[in-house]
Protein backbone atom coordinates (compact mmCIF):
# COMPACT_ATOMS: atom_id res chain seq x y z
CA UNK A 1 0.00 0.00 0.00
CA UNK A 2 1.46 3.41 -1.08
CA UNK A 3 1.59 6.30 1.33
CA UNK A 4 -0.38 9.54 0.72
CA UNK A 5 2.88 11.38 -0.10
CA UNK A 6 3.85 8.84 -2.75
CA UNK A 7 0.42 9.16 -4.36
CA UNK A 8 0.63 12.97 -4.46
CA UNK A 9 4.12 12.89 -6.00
CA UNK A 10 2.93 10.40 -8.61
CA UNK A 11 -0.01 12.74 -9.35
CA UNK A 12 2.35 15.67 -9.71
CA UNK A 13 4.66 13.72 -11.99
CA UNK A 14 1.71 12.66 -14.11
CA UNK A 15 0.40 16.22 -14.36
CA UNK A 16 3.89 17.48 -15.29
CA UNK A 17 4.20 14.76 -17.89
CA UNK A 18 0.77 15.62 -19.21
CA UNK A 19 1.62 19.34 -19.46
CA UNK A 20 4.94 18.57 -21.17
CA UNK A 21 3.14 16.24 -23.58
CA UNK A 22 0.65 19.03 -24.41
CA UNK A 23 3.54 21.46 -24.94
CA UNK A 24 5.41 19.03 -27.19
CA UNK A 25 2.21 18.36 -29.14
CA UNK A 26 1.66 22.10 -29.46
CA UNK A 27 5.25 22.54 -30.63
CA UNK A 28 4.78 19.86 -33.27
CA UNK A 29 1.48 21.42 -34.27
CA UNK A 30 3.03 24.89 -34.66
CA UNK A 31 6.08 23.51 -36.47
CA UNK A 32 3.78 21.60 -38.82
CA UNK A 33 1.64 24.68 -39.29
CA UNK A 34 4.70 26.76 -40.10
CA UNK A 35 5.94 24.16 -42.58
CA UNK A 36 2.53 24.11 -44.21
CA UNK A 37 2.57 27.92 -44.28
CA UNK A 38 6.05 27.86 -45.81
CA UNK A 39 4.96 25.36 -48.50
CA UNK A 40 1.83 27.38 -49.22
CA UNK A 41 3.99 30.51 -49.47
CA UNK A 42 6.28 28.70 -51.89
CA UNK A 43 3.31 27.74 -54.08
CA UNK A 44 2.02 31.30 -53.87
CA UNK A 45 5.49 32.54 -54.83
CA UNK A 46 5.47 30.31 -57.88
CA UNK A 47 2.05 31.64 -58.89
CA UNK A 48 3.23 35.24 -58.43
CA UNK A 49 6.36 34.47 -60.45
CA UNK A 50 4.25 32.87 -63.20
CA UNK A 51 1.90 35.88 -63.37
CA UNK A 52 4.81 38.35 -63.43
CA UNK A 53 6.61 36.34 -66.09
CA UNK A 54 3.43 36.07 -68.14
CA UNK A 55 3.06 39.85 -68.05
CA UNK A 56 6.69 40.31 -69.08
CA UNK A 57 6.59 37.74 -71.89
CA UNK A 58 3.39 39.17 -73.37
CA UNK A 59 4.84 42.68 -73.22
CA UNK A 60 8.51 42.21 -74.11
CA UNK A 61 9.70 43.65 -77.44
CA UNK A 62 11.93 40.57 -77.67
CA UNK A 63 8.87 38.47 -78.52
CA UNK A 64 6.18 40.98 -79.44
CA UNK A 65 5.51 43.63 -82.04
CA UNK A 66 3.77 46.79 -80.96
CA UNK A 67 0.50 46.40 -79.05
CA UNK A 68 1.62 43.29 -77.16
CA UNK A 69 1.05 40.99 -80.11
CA UNK A 70 3.41 38.04 -80.39
CA UNK A 71 5.42 38.14 -83.61
CA UNK A 72 5.92 34.80 -85.37
CA UNK A 73 9.11 36.22 -86.87
CA UNK A 74 10.56 36.83 -83.41
CA UNK A 75 9.33 33.53 -81.99
CA UNK A 76 11.00 31.73 -84.88
CA UNK A 77 14.17 33.79 -84.67
CA UNK A 78 14.71 32.92 -81.01
CA UNK A 79 14.31 29.28 -81.93
CA UNK A 80 16.12 27.02 -79.50
CA UNK A 81 18.37 29.65 -77.89
CA UNK A 82 16.85 29.09 -74.48
CA UNK A 83 19.96 30.02 -72.51
CA UNK A 84 20.02 33.63 -73.72
CA UNK A 85 16.28 33.86 -73.17
CA UNK A 86 16.61 32.60 -69.59
CA UNK A 87 19.49 35.01 -68.96
CA UNK A 88 17.00 37.81 -69.57
CA UNK A 89 13.76 36.33 -68.17
CA UNK A 90 15.16 34.10 -65.43
CA UNK A 91 15.31 30.32 -65.13
CA UNK A 92 12.74 27.59 -64.54
CA UNK A 93 10.00 28.22 -67.09
CA UNK A 94 8.78 27.20 -70.52
CA UNK A 95 6.23 28.58 -72.93
CA UNK A 96 4.10 27.08 -75.67
CA UNK A 97 1.92 28.94 -78.14
CA UNK A 98 -0.64 27.00 -80.15
CA UNK A 99 -2.51 28.79 -82.96
CA UNK A 100 -6.20 27.88 -82.67
CA UNK A 101 -6.82 26.81 -86.26
CA UNK A 102 -8.39 23.36 -85.71
CA UNK A 103 -5.48 21.66 -87.46
CA UNK A 104 -2.97 19.09 -86.29
CA UNK A 105 -0.03 20.64 -84.41
CA UNK A 106 2.92 21.41 -86.65
CA UNK A 107 5.93 22.77 -84.78
CA UNK A 108 7.32 25.94 -86.31
CA UNK A 109 10.86 25.98 -87.65
CA UNK A 110 12.88 27.96 -90.13
CA UNK A 111 11.50 26.36 -93.28
CA UNK A 112 7.79 26.17 -92.48
CA UNK A 113 6.77 29.53 -91.04
CA UNK A 114 3.69 29.77 -93.26
CA UNK A 115 2.28 26.29 -92.60
CA UNK A 116 3.10 25.71 -88.90
CA UNK A 117 0.91 26.45 -85.88
CA UNK A 118 2.88 25.58 -82.73
CA UNK A 119 5.79 27.43 -81.08
CA UNK A 120 7.69 26.13 -78.11
CA UNK A 121 10.31 27.97 -76.04
CA UNK A 122 12.53 26.29 -73.42
CA UNK A 123 10.29 23.19 -73.22
CA UNK A 124 13.31 20.87 -73.60
CA UNK A 125 14.68 21.91 -70.21
CA UNK A 126 11.53 20.97 -68.29
CA UNK A 127 12.03 17.66 -66.57
CA UNK A 128 8.73 16.95 -64.75
CA UNK A 129 9.49 19.08 -61.69
CA UNK A 130 6.55 20.43 -59.73
CA UNK A 131 4.89 22.85 -62.08
CA UNK A 132 2.55 25.81 -61.96
CA UNK A 133 1.06 26.43 -65.38
CA UNK A 134 -1.33 29.00 -66.82
CA UNK A 135 -3.17 29.22 -70.11
CA UNK A 136 -3.84 32.60 -71.65
CA UNK A 137 -5.49 33.55 -74.96
CA UNK A 138 -3.08 35.68 -76.99
CA UNK A 139 -2.73 37.14 -80.49
CA UNK A 140 0.06 36.17 -82.83
CA UNK A 141 1.01 38.20 -85.89
CA UNK A 142 1.33 35.26 -88.26
CA UNK A 143 2.87 35.33 -91.72
CA UNK A 144 1.14 33.36 -94.45
CA UNK A 145 3.64 33.61 -97.25
CA UNK A 146 4.26 35.45 -100.43
CA UNK A 147 0.87 36.34 -101.78
CA UNK A 148 1.50 39.84 -103.01
CA UNK A 149 4.24 41.52 -105.00
CA UNK A 150 5.05 43.97 -102.24
CA UNK A 151 4.83 42.09 -98.99
CA UNK A 152 4.60 38.84 -97.13
CA UNK A 153 1.03 38.79 -95.87
CA UNK A 154 0.35 38.60 -92.16
CA UNK A 155 -2.81 38.20 -90.14
CA UNK A 156 -3.67 38.29 -86.46
CA UNK A 157 -4.12 34.70 -85.31
CA UNK A 158 -5.84 33.76 -82.08
CA UNK A 159 -3.69 31.43 -80.05
CA UNK A 160 -3.43 29.81 -76.65
CA UNK A 161 -0.30 30.48 -74.67
CA UNK A 162 0.73 28.05 -71.96
CA UNK A 163 3.32 29.20 -69.47
CA UNK A 164 4.81 26.69 -67.08
CA UNK A 165 6.90 27.79 -64.09
CA UNK A 166 8.91 25.34 -62.02
CA UNK A 167 11.54 25.52 -59.24
Amino acid sequence: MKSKGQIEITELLLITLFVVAILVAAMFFFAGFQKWQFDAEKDKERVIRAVGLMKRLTDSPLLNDENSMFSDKKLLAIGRDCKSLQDVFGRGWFMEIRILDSRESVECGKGNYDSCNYYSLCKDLYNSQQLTAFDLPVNVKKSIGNQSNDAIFTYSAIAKMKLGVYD
Partner: protein
Amino acid sequence: MESYQLFKIILGIIASVLILGFVFLYISGYSATQQEFRKVKALKSFISASEGAYLTGNGMDFDDFEKIKETAAFDPSAPGLRMGNFQEPFVVPVLYSEGPGLAIASNELDFGWWKVRYVTALPEMRILLNPLDNTDGTWGAMEMFVSNMTSGINSRHKVAFAICDDRDIVSPCGPGGCQKDDFLAGLASLKKAYGECQMRLDERDRLVMVSVACPETEALCISPSSASSGRLVQGEKSAPYRDAVDIIAAVAGGFDAYEYKNKAFFQELGLASMMLANSSLIFSKELRIIGNDTAFAMDSASKDLDRIESRLIPSLEEQKKSLPEEGKKTIESEIEKLKTVEMPRIRQCISLYRRLNETIAEASEKAGSAMDRLGRANSALAEAGCARLPKQRQLDCIIEGYAGYRPSLLALHAVAENYKGLMTDDLSGMFARANSDAASRAERLKEVCP
Protein backbone atom coordinates in the same frame (compact mmCIF):
# COMPACT_ATOMS: atom_id res chain seq x y z
CA MET B 1 7.05 19.84 6.96
CA GLU B 2 7.27 16.28 5.83
CA SER B 3 10.11 15.38 3.42
CA TYR B 4 7.75 14.35 0.65
CA GLN B 5 6.12 17.81 0.76
CA LEU B 6 9.53 19.47 0.39
CA PHE B 7 10.29 17.12 -2.49
CA LYS B 8 6.93 18.05 -4.08
CA ILE B 9 7.72 21.77 -3.87
CA ILE B 10 11.21 21.33 -5.38
CA LEU B 11 9.83 19.14 -8.17
CA GLY B 12 7.05 21.68 -8.79
CA ILE B 13 9.57 24.52 -9.06
CA ILE B 14 11.83 22.53 -11.42
CA ALA B 15 8.87 21.51 -13.59
CA SER B 16 7.52 25.09 -13.69
CA VAL B 17 10.96 26.55 -14.61
CA LEU B 18 11.40 23.94 -17.32
CA ILE B 19 7.94 24.50 -18.76
CA LEU B 20 8.17 28.30 -18.58
CA GLY B 21 11.69 28.24 -20.06
CA PHE B 22 10.53 26.03 -22.86
CA VAL B 23 7.51 28.25 -23.60
CA PHE B 24 9.67 31.39 -23.44
CA LEU B 25 12.29 29.95 -25.79
CA TYR B 26 9.65 28.80 -28.21
CA ILE B 27 7.82 32.13 -28.21
CA SER B 28 11.01 34.14 -28.63
CA GLY B 29 12.06 31.84 -31.49
CA TYR B 30 8.65 32.23 -33.06
CA SER B 31 8.78 36.01 -32.78
CA ALA B 32 12.30 36.09 -34.28
CA THR B 33 11.02 33.97 -37.16
CA GLN B 34 8.15 36.40 -37.70
CA GLN B 35 10.64 39.28 -37.65
CA GLU B 36 12.73 37.54 -40.32
CA PHE B 37 9.56 36.76 -42.23
CA ARG B 38 8.81 40.49 -42.42
CA LYS B 39 12.23 41.06 -43.99
CA VAL B 40 11.54 38.43 -46.64
CA LYS B 41 8.12 39.98 -47.27
CA ALA B 42 9.66 43.45 -47.66
CA LEU B 43 12.28 42.13 -50.09
CA LYS B 44 9.66 40.31 -52.16
CA SER B 45 7.46 43.36 -52.09
CA PHE B 46 10.34 45.46 -53.49
CA ILE B 47 10.94 42.95 -56.31
CA SER B 48 7.24 42.99 -57.13
CA ALA B 49 7.09 46.83 -57.05
CA SER B 50 10.12 47.12 -59.36
CA GLU B 51 8.59 44.60 -61.76
CA GLY B 52 5.31 46.56 -61.71
CA ALA B 53 7.11 49.83 -62.49
CA TYR B 54 9.06 48.13 -65.30
CA LEU B 55 5.90 46.71 -66.90
CA THR B 56 3.54 49.65 -66.51
CA GLY B 57 6.03 52.51 -66.78
CA ASN B 58 4.47 54.06 -63.67
CA GLY B 59 6.75 55.04 -60.82
CA MET B 60 5.88 54.70 -57.14
CA ASP B 61 7.20 55.32 -53.64
CA PHE B 62 8.37 52.25 -51.74
CA ASP B 63 8.38 52.54 -47.94
CA ASP B 64 8.36 48.93 -46.68
CA PHE B 65 12.01 49.09 -45.58
CA GLU B 66 11.18 52.20 -43.54
CA LYS B 67 8.31 50.31 -41.85
CA ILE B 68 10.53 47.43 -40.71
CA LYS B 69 13.34 49.89 -39.87
CA GLU B 70 15.94 48.06 -41.97
CA THR B 71 17.46 48.74 -45.34
CA ALA B 72 18.46 46.24 -47.99
CA ALA B 73 21.86 46.26 -49.67
CA PHE B 74 22.62 45.55 -53.32
CA ASP B 75 24.07 42.04 -53.66
CA PRO B 76 26.07 41.75 -56.87
CA SER B 77 26.42 37.96 -56.59
CA ALA B 78 22.74 37.21 -57.38
CA PRO B 79 22.30 40.04 -58.53
CA GLY B 80 19.56 41.29 -56.24
CA LEU B 81 18.96 42.63 -52.75
CA ARG B 82 20.24 41.28 -49.45
CA MET B 83 18.87 41.86 -45.96
CA GLY B 84 20.55 39.84 -43.22
CA ASN B 85 20.53 36.21 -44.31
CA PHE B 86 17.92 36.76 -46.97
CA GLN B 87 18.53 37.42 -50.58
CA GLU B 88 16.08 38.09 -53.37
CA PRO B 89 17.22 38.32 -57.02
CA PHE B 90 16.04 41.08 -59.37
CA VAL B 91 13.66 39.96 -62.10
CA VAL B 92 14.04 43.16 -64.14
CA PRO B 93 17.11 45.45 -64.42
CA VAL B 94 17.13 47.66 -61.30
CA LEU B 95 19.64 50.40 -60.46
CA TYR B 96 19.41 50.45 -56.68
CA SER B 97 20.72 52.79 -54.03
CA GLU B 98 20.34 51.89 -50.36
CA GLY B 99 17.85 53.89 -48.31
CA PRO B 100 14.78 53.47 -46.07
CA GLY B 101 12.31 55.16 -48.44
CA LEU B 102 12.77 54.76 -52.18
CA ALA B 103 11.39 56.37 -55.33
CA ILE B 104 10.95 53.64 -57.93
CA ALA B 105 10.82 54.86 -61.53
CA SER B 106 10.81 53.24 -64.94
CA ASN B 107 13.15 54.46 -67.69
CA GLU B 108 14.52 53.35 -71.03
CA LEU B 109 17.73 53.77 -72.97
CA ASP B 110 17.41 54.07 -76.74
CA PHE B 111 20.25 52.48 -78.71
CA GLY B 112 18.69 53.50 -82.04
CA TRP B 113 17.95 49.95 -83.14
CA TRP B 114 16.74 48.70 -79.72
CA LYS B 115 15.43 50.18 -76.47
CA VAL B 116 16.42 48.69 -73.12
CA ARG B 117 14.05 49.32 -70.23
CA TYR B 118 15.27 49.57 -66.65
CA VAL B 119 14.10 50.68 -63.22
CA THR B 120 15.77 53.08 -60.79
CA ALA B 121 15.16 52.81 -57.03
CA LEU B 122 16.68 55.84 -55.32
CA PRO B 123 16.31 57.27 -51.81
CA GLU B 124 16.02 60.97 -51.12
CA MET B 125 19.43 62.41 -51.95
CA ARG B 126 21.28 65.56 -52.85
CA ILE B 127 23.76 65.09 -55.67
CA LEU B 128 26.61 67.53 -55.30
CA LEU B 129 28.25 68.06 -58.67
CA ASN B 130 31.76 69.42 -58.58
CA PRO B 131 32.91 70.61 -62.02
CA LEU B 132 36.63 71.30 -61.77
CA ASP B 133 37.02 72.87 -65.21
CA ASN B 134 34.96 74.88 -67.66
CA THR B 135 35.30 72.68 -70.77
CA ASP B 136 32.37 71.73 -73.01
CA GLY B 137 33.07 68.07 -72.24
CA THR B 138 32.66 68.57 -68.49
CA TRP B 139 29.44 70.55 -68.75
CA GLY B 140 28.10 68.28 -71.50
CA ALA B 141 28.69 65.19 -69.31
CA MET B 142 26.96 66.89 -66.36
CA GLU B 143 23.98 67.85 -68.49
CA MET B 144 23.74 64.33 -69.95
CA PHE B 145 23.81 62.78 -66.48
CA VAL B 146 21.27 65.15 -64.87
CA SER B 147 18.84 65.08 -67.81
CA ASN B 148 18.71 61.28 -67.70
CA MET B 149 18.03 61.11 -63.96
CA THR B 150 14.49 60.49 -62.74
CA SER B 151 12.63 63.76 -62.17
CA GLY B 152 10.98 62.53 -58.95
CA ILE B 153 8.32 65.23 -59.25
CA ASN B 154 5.54 63.01 -57.90
CA SER B 155 7.67 61.26 -55.31
CA ARG B 156 8.23 62.01 -51.63
CA HIS B 157 11.84 60.82 -52.02
CA LYS B 158 13.24 63.52 -54.22
CA VAL B 159 16.66 63.75 -55.84
CA ALA B 160 18.07 67.28 -55.68
CA PHE B 161 21.07 68.69 -57.55
CA ALA B 162 23.53 71.37 -56.51
CA ILE B 163 27.09 72.41 -57.25
CA CYS B 164 29.76 72.11 -54.60
CA ASP B 165 32.38 74.84 -54.69
CA ASP B 166 35.13 74.32 -52.13
CA ARG B 167 33.14 74.67 -48.86
CA ASP B 168 30.01 76.23 -50.40
CA ILE B 169 26.88 75.06 -52.11
CA VAL B 170 25.98 76.84 -55.34
CA SER B 171 22.42 76.35 -56.53
CA PRO B 172 19.77 78.57 -58.14
CA CYS B 173 17.22 77.09 -55.70
CA GLY B 174 19.05 77.46 -52.38
CA PRO B 175 21.36 75.13 -50.41
CA GLY B 176 18.87 72.23 -50.48
CA GLY B 177 19.50 71.92 -54.21
CA CYS B 178 17.21 72.07 -57.23
CA GLN B 179 14.92 69.56 -58.80
CA LYS B 180 16.17 68.19 -62.11
CA ASP B 181 14.31 70.58 -64.44
CA ASP B 182 15.10 73.72 -62.41
CA PHE B 183 18.74 72.71 -62.19
CA LEU B 184 18.98 72.09 -65.94
CA ALA B 185 17.27 75.44 -66.65
CA GLY B 186 19.82 77.28 -64.51
CA LEU B 187 22.86 75.25 -65.57
CA ALA B 188 24.05 77.70 -68.26
CA SER B 189 24.31 80.53 -65.72
CA LEU B 190 26.55 78.40 -63.45
CA LYS B 191 29.16 77.65 -66.11
CA LYS B 192 32.68 78.14 -64.74
CA ALA B 193 35.40 76.11 -63.05
CA TYR B 194 34.82 75.43 -59.31
CA GLY B 195 37.16 74.59 -56.46
CA GLU B 196 37.51 71.00 -55.26
CA CYS B 197 34.70 70.16 -52.84
CA GLN B 198 35.86 70.26 -49.21
CA MET B 199 32.40 70.17 -47.63
CA ARG B 200 31.44 67.84 -44.84
CA LEU B 201 28.84 65.65 -46.50
CA ASP B 202 25.45 64.69 -45.06
CA GLU B 203 24.27 61.10 -45.13
CA ARG B 204 22.01 61.95 -48.09
CA ASP B 205 24.76 63.68 -50.10
CA ARG B 206 26.51 62.09 -53.07
CA LEU B 207 29.57 63.89 -54.37
CA VAL B 208 30.24 63.57 -58.10
CA MET B 209 33.31 65.32 -59.44
CA VAL B 210 33.44 66.16 -63.14
CA SER B 211 36.70 66.97 -64.84
CA VAL B 212 38.67 66.19 -67.97
CA ALA B 213 41.55 65.33 -65.60
CA CYS B 214 40.19 63.71 -62.42
CA PRO B 215 42.19 64.31 -59.22
CA GLU B 216 43.15 61.38 -56.97
CA THR B 217 40.16 61.11 -54.67
CA GLU B 218 37.78 58.63 -53.08
CA ALA B 219 34.76 60.43 -54.59
CA LEU B 220 33.31 59.31 -57.91
CA CYS B 221 34.69 61.37 -60.77
CA ILE B 222 33.38 61.62 -64.34
CA SER B 223 36.12 62.23 -66.87
CA PRO B 224 34.54 62.93 -70.28
CA SER B 225 36.40 62.25 -73.53
CA SER B 226 33.56 62.93 -75.98
CA ALA B 227 29.97 64.16 -75.88
CA SER B 228 28.57 60.88 -74.57
CA SER B 229 31.52 58.82 -73.38
CA GLY B 230 34.51 58.96 -71.10
CA ARG B 231 35.73 57.31 -67.91
CA LEU B 232 34.40 56.87 -64.40
CA VAL B 233 37.10 57.01 -61.75
CA GLN B 234 36.85 56.27 -58.04
CA GLY B 235 39.96 55.64 -55.99
CA GLU B 236 41.86 52.80 -57.65
CA LYS B 237 38.92 51.80 -59.82
CA SER B 238 38.26 53.11 -63.28
CA ALA B 239 35.93 52.07 -66.12
CA PRO B 240 34.62 53.57 -69.35
CA TYR B 241 31.11 54.96 -69.62
CA ARG B 242 29.18 54.86 -72.88
CA ASP B 243 25.88 56.41 -71.87
CA ALA B 244 24.20 58.32 -69.04
CA VAL B 245 22.91 55.10 -67.45
CA ASP B 246 26.51 53.98 -66.77
CA ILE B 247 26.97 57.17 -64.72
CA ILE B 248 23.59 56.80 -62.98
CA ALA B 249 24.46 53.20 -62.03
CA ALA B 250 27.85 54.24 -60.60
CA VAL B 251 26.31 57.15 -58.64
CA ALA B 252 23.53 54.92 -57.31
CA GLY B 253 25.50 51.84 -56.36
CA GLY B 254 29.18 52.28 -57.22
CA PHE B 255 31.14 50.02 -59.55
CA ASP B 256 29.16 46.91 -58.53
CA ALA B 257 25.99 48.52 -59.88
CA TYR B 258 27.89 49.69 -62.98
CA GLU B 259 29.00 46.11 -63.71
CA TYR B 260 25.50 44.77 -63.08
CA LYS B 261 23.97 47.38 -65.43
CA ASN B 262 26.35 46.41 -68.20
CA LYS B 263 25.75 42.70 -67.71
CA ALA B 264 21.95 43.10 -67.75
CA PHE B 265 21.92 45.49 -70.71
CA PHE B 266 24.36 43.50 -72.83
CA GLN B 267 22.54 40.24 -72.15
CA GLU B 268 19.41 41.80 -73.61
CA LEU B 269 21.27 43.51 -76.46
CA GLY B 270 23.04 40.22 -77.28
CA LEU B 271 19.76 38.34 -77.46
CA ALA B 272 17.99 41.10 -79.43
CA SER B 273 20.81 41.39 -81.98
CA MET B 274 20.97 37.61 -82.51
CA MET B 275 17.20 37.38 -82.79
CA LEU B 276 16.92 40.21 -85.33
CA ALA B 277 19.86 38.76 -87.30
CA ASN B 278 18.16 35.35 -87.41
CA SER B 279 14.84 36.83 -88.45
CA SER B 280 16.45 38.04 -91.70
CA LEU B 281 16.93 34.37 -92.64
CA ILE B 282 13.42 33.13 -91.94
CA PHE B 283 11.80 34.45 -95.08
CA SER B 284 14.70 33.45 -97.35
CA LYS B 285 12.59 30.64 -98.77
CA GLU B 286 10.53 33.39 -100.40
CA LEU B 287 13.56 33.92 -102.64
CA ARG B 288 12.62 30.79 -104.58
CA ILE B 289 9.32 32.40 -105.55
CA ILE B 290 11.12 35.60 -106.49
CA GLY B 291 13.36 33.36 -108.67
CA ASN B 292 10.36 32.71 -110.91
CA ASP B 293 10.20 36.43 -111.57
CA THR B 294 13.70 36.43 -113.02
CA ALA B 295 12.80 33.65 -115.47
CA PHE B 296 9.80 35.70 -116.52
CA ALA B 297 11.96 38.85 -116.86
CA MET B 298 14.57 36.95 -118.92
CA ASP B 299 11.86 35.62 -121.23
CA SER B 300 10.33 39.06 -121.59
CA ALA B 301 13.73 40.65 -122.36
CA SER B 302 14.50 37.92 -124.94
CA LYS B 303 11.18 38.62 -126.62
CA ASP B 304 12.00 42.36 -126.66
CA LEU B 305 15.34 41.58 -128.27
CA ASP B 306 13.72 39.31 -130.81
CA ARG B 307 11.05 41.92 -131.56
CA ILE B 308 13.68 44.59 -132.19
CA GLU B 309 15.85 42.31 -134.29
CA SER B 310 13.25 40.53 -136.36
CA ARG B 311 10.45 43.06 -136.59
CA LEU B 312 11.29 46.61 -135.54
CA ILE B 313 14.58 47.00 -137.42
CA PRO B 314 13.27 45.39 -140.69
CA SER B 315 10.14 47.53 -140.43
CA LEU B 316 12.23 50.68 -139.99
CA GLU B 317 14.43 49.61 -142.93
CA GLU B 318 11.27 49.25 -145.02
CA GLN B 319 9.95 52.68 -143.93
CA LYS B 320 13.31 54.25 -144.73
CA LYS B 321 13.01 53.39 -148.44
CA SER B 322 9.93 55.53 -148.95
CA LEU B 323 11.24 58.56 -147.04
CA PRO B 324 13.13 61.63 -148.32
CA GLU B 325 16.85 61.99 -147.52
CA GLU B 326 16.23 63.87 -144.24
CA GLY B 327 13.82 61.22 -142.95
CA LYS B 328 16.20 58.42 -143.97
CA LYS B 329 18.92 59.91 -141.79
CA THR B 330 16.59 60.05 -138.79
CA ILE B 331 15.55 56.43 -139.28
CA GLU B 332 19.17 55.34 -139.75
CA SER B 333 20.20 57.01 -136.51
CA GLU B 334 17.24 55.30 -134.79
CA ILE B 335 18.37 51.91 -136.15
CA GLU B 336 21.95 52.65 -135.11
CA LYS B 337 20.78 53.55 -131.59
CA LEU B 338 18.82 50.32 -131.38
CA LYS B 339 21.81 48.26 -132.51
CA THR B 340 24.50 49.97 -130.47
CA VAL B 341 22.65 50.97 -127.28
CA GLU B 342 19.31 49.26 -126.80
CA MET B 343 20.16 45.73 -127.99
CA PRO B 344 23.42 45.48 -126.01
CA ARG B 345 21.58 46.81 -122.96
CA ILE B 346 18.87 44.15 -123.28
CA ARG B 347 21.54 41.45 -123.78
CA GLN B 348 23.31 42.71 -120.66
CA CYS B 349 20.00 42.62 -118.78
CA ILE B 350 19.36 39.03 -119.89
CA SER B 351 22.81 38.07 -118.64
CA LEU B 352 22.22 39.94 -115.35
CA TYR B 353 18.80 38.28 -114.86
CA ARG B 354 20.48 34.92 -115.41
CA ARG B 355 23.12 35.76 -112.81
CA LEU B 356 20.43 36.93 -110.40
CA ASN B 357 18.46 33.73 -110.96
CA GLU B 358 21.51 31.57 -110.19
CA THR B 359 22.41 33.51 -107.05
CA ILE B 360 18.79 33.47 -105.85
CA ALA B 361 18.74 29.67 -106.09
CA GLU B 362 22.02 29.49 -104.20
CA ALA B 363 21.05 32.09 -101.57
CA SER B 364 17.66 30.50 -100.82
CA GLU B 365 19.48 27.27 -100.01
CA LYS B 366 22.40 28.43 -97.92
CA ALA B 367 22.28 32.25 -97.59
CA GLY B 368 25.80 33.20 -96.39
CA SER B 369 28.10 34.70 -99.00
CA ALA B 370 25.57 33.82 -101.73
CA MET B 371 23.35 36.52 -100.23
CA ASP B 372 26.15 39.06 -100.68
CA ARG B 373 26.54 37.99 -104.30
CA LEU B 374 22.79 38.32 -104.68
CA GLY B 375 23.03 41.87 -103.36
CA ARG B 376 25.71 42.71 -105.92
CA ALA B 377 23.72 41.12 -108.77
CA ASN B 378 20.61 43.08 -107.72
CA SER B 379 22.55 46.38 -107.64
CA ALA B 380 24.07 45.65 -111.07
CA LEU B 381 20.56 45.15 -112.49
CA ALA B 382 19.40 48.48 -111.08
CA GLU B 383 22.51 50.27 -112.39
CA ALA B 384 22.03 48.80 -115.88
CA GLY B 385 18.49 50.23 -115.92
CA CYS B 386 16.87 46.83 -116.47
CA ALA B 387 13.15 46.40 -115.80
CA ARG B 388 12.32 45.88 -112.13
CA LEU B 389 10.97 42.52 -111.08
CA PRO B 390 7.34 42.27 -109.93
CA LYS B 391 8.51 41.28 -106.44
CA GLN B 392 11.46 43.67 -106.47
CA ARG B 393 10.49 45.31 -103.12
CA GLN B 394 10.52 41.95 -101.38
CA LEU B 395 13.89 41.13 -102.92
CA ASP B 396 15.34 44.50 -101.87
CA CYS B 397 13.95 43.98 -98.35
CA ILE B 398 15.43 40.49 -97.97
CA ILE B 399 18.81 41.65 -99.30
CA GLU B 400 18.85 44.76 -97.09
CA GLY B 401 17.90 42.68 -94.07
CA TYR B 402 20.53 40.04 -94.73
CA ALA B 403 23.42 41.74 -96.48
CA GLY B 404 22.94 45.13 -94.79
CA TYR B 405 21.41 44.83 -91.31
CA ARG B 406 22.50 41.31 -90.39
CA PRO B 407 26.33 41.82 -90.43
CA SER B 408 26.02 44.88 -88.19
CA LEU B 409 23.79 42.92 -85.79
CA LEU B 410 26.19 40.00 -85.73
CA ALA B 411 29.06 42.39 -84.99
CA LEU B 412 27.02 43.84 -82.14
CA HIS B 413 26.17 40.37 -80.89
CA ALA B 414 29.86 39.42 -80.78
CA VAL B 415 30.64 42.52 -78.74
CA ALA B 416 27.63 42.09 -76.44
CA GLU B 417 28.50 38.45 -75.76
CA ASN B 418 31.89 39.56 -74.57
CA TYR B 419 30.46 42.30 -72.33
CA LYS B 420 33.26 42.03 -69.79
CA GLY B 421 35.56 43.49 -72.43
CA LEU B 422 33.28 46.53 -72.43
CA MET B 423 34.17 47.30 -68.83
CA THR B 424 37.70 47.96 -69.97
CA ASP B 425 38.49 49.97 -73.08
CA ASP B 426 38.99 46.90 -75.28
CA LEU B 427 35.65 46.78 -77.04
CA SER B 428 34.18 50.20 -76.40
CA GLY B 429 35.12 51.63 -79.81
CA MET B 430 34.00 48.46 -81.55
CA PHE B 431 30.65 48.61 -79.75
CA ALA B 432 30.14 52.29 -80.62
CA ARG B 433 30.80 51.57 -84.31
CA ALA B 434 28.63 48.45 -84.45
CA ASN B 435 25.81 50.21 -82.57
CA SER B 436 25.82 53.24 -84.83
CA ASP B 437 25.95 50.97 -87.92
CA ALA B 438 23.02 48.87 -86.62
CA ALA B 439 21.00 52.02 -85.85
CA SER B 440 21.48 53.45 -89.35
CA ARG B 441 20.79 50.04 -90.95
CA ALA B 442 17.57 49.73 -88.93
CA GLU B 443 16.44 53.11 -90.33
CA ARG B 444 17.33 52.02 -93.87
CA LEU B 445 15.43 48.75 -93.43
CA LYS B 446 12.32 50.67 -92.42
CA GLU B 447 12.51 52.58 -95.72
CA VAL B 448 13.20 49.54 -97.90
CA CYS B 449 10.84 46.98 -96.40
CA PRO B 450 7.16 47.17 -97.20
